[in-house]
């Protein structure tokens, strides 16, 4: 590699430090902040004795229900107030419901021009035979984008809460919770062998035919995720990790969400500025029709399938 600046000079520049900071090779707190190694909490005998004395006193004085008048009164008042609160809530909701316009009334807010337009012009404007998909992924695609991101954020939260960091220790009970179960269950494996391919194909069909019939990205993705979970239960982590790891999940869901955002921002930009979109709507009923809806369905399906599977793995094992 040829460099115009020698290595020593390059190391002094700001860009080198920025690069190291971006890559994470340099800890910004190292040598600038005083750091103490964490100590394990140890308690001596005196504090243990004091604590047990405290607990005993609490058990005698506070939780002695027969002699503690405060708790008795509190419980009675609590019961009365909980019933009162429930009655109040029910009354309030019933009053609110009674103020709603009656079903079938002509001037209900539901009977506006929006639903009429969806039903009359939906096929021409979105090209989707299934009006529901046309609404979800064309007129209201912004909501669906938010939904996909909610799913992604939910997975991130599950990862933060349930992920076990540190070395892989096969002896630990949590890491290998199949230790006390029959492995290689013949019935489960045979059933999975027969059922998993049709489940996958059905899920893919639901995703791809989302604009033609009932279905769509979310339901198809959930079906594929359920199939993945079944496969994992039958054959164990070693086999699924050959094709689906944390890296796969990160990359596929990032690509899917980015693709969704890009496609949809293109369509928003052209739509908001009254520019002609270059994406053809195609013939209604054909698989390659209705513009962006097929791509968006595939993106949502990928995100949902990965999310379902990741939830399960995190609950089971806490790590990939």
């Amino acid at each position, binding site marked *: 590699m040829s460099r115009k600046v020698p290595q020593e000079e390059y190391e002094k520049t700001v860009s080198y430090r920025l690069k190291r900071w971006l890559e994470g090779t340099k800890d910004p707190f190292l040598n600038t902040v005083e750091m103490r190694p964490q100590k394990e909490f140890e308690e001596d005998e005196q504090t243990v004795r004091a604590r047990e004395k405290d607990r005993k006193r609490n058990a005698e004085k506070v939780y002695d229900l027969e002699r503690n008048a405060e708790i008795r009164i509190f419980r009675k008042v609590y019961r009365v107030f909980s019933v009162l609160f429930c009655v109040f809530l029910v009354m309030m909701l019933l009053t609110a419901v009674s103020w709603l316009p009656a079903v079938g009334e002509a001037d209900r807010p539901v009977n506006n021009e929006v639903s009429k337009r969806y039903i009359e012009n939906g096929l021409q404007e979105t090209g989707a035979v*299934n009006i*529901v*998909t046309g609404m979800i992924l064309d007129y209201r695609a912004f909501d669906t984008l938010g939904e996909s991101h909610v799913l992604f954020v939910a997975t991130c939260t599950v990862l933060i809460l349930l992920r076990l960091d540190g070395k892989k220790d096969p002896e630990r009970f949590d890491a290998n*919770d199949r230790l006390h179960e029959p492995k290689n269950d013949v019935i489960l494996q045979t059933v999975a062998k027969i059922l998993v391919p049709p489940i996958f194909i059905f899920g893919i069909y*639901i995703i791809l035919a989302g604009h033609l019939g*009932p*279905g*769509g990205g*979310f*339901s198809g993705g*959930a*079906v594929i*995720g*359920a199939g993945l*979970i079944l496969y994992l239960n039958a054959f164990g982590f070693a086999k699924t990790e050959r094709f689906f790891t944390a890296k796969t999940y990160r990359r596929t869901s990032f690509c899917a969400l980015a693709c969704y955002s890009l496609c949809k921002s293109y369509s928003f930009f052209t739509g908001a500025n009254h520019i002609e979109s270059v994406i053809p709507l195609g013939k209604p009923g054909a698989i390659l029709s209705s513009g962006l809806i097929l791509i968006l369905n595939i993106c949502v399906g990928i995100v949902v399938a990965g999310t*379902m599977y990741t*939830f*399960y793995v995190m*609950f*089971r094992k806490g790590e990939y």
Partner: protein
Amino acid sequence: MTVFTCILLGFLIICAVAASLSRNLLNTILIFMSYSLVMSVIWILLESPDLAITEAAVGAGVTTVLFLVTLKKIHAIMKEDQDE
């Protein structure tokens, strides 16, 4: 058709009450799963197959499995084996 729908709706209410009153957590989860399954049939009767597919896959499938795994993690299922 309406009789069938009424039977299903009654089953839904029974399931909802039974799930909250059941003492055994495993039974609660199974009742909850049957609730989702009946709900997905009702969605089909209400002519929204999109929701029916999602309800069957998410409500009856994935949620139940997650609940079962959680029960296993907190050792609520293994209790009966220890009693023997």
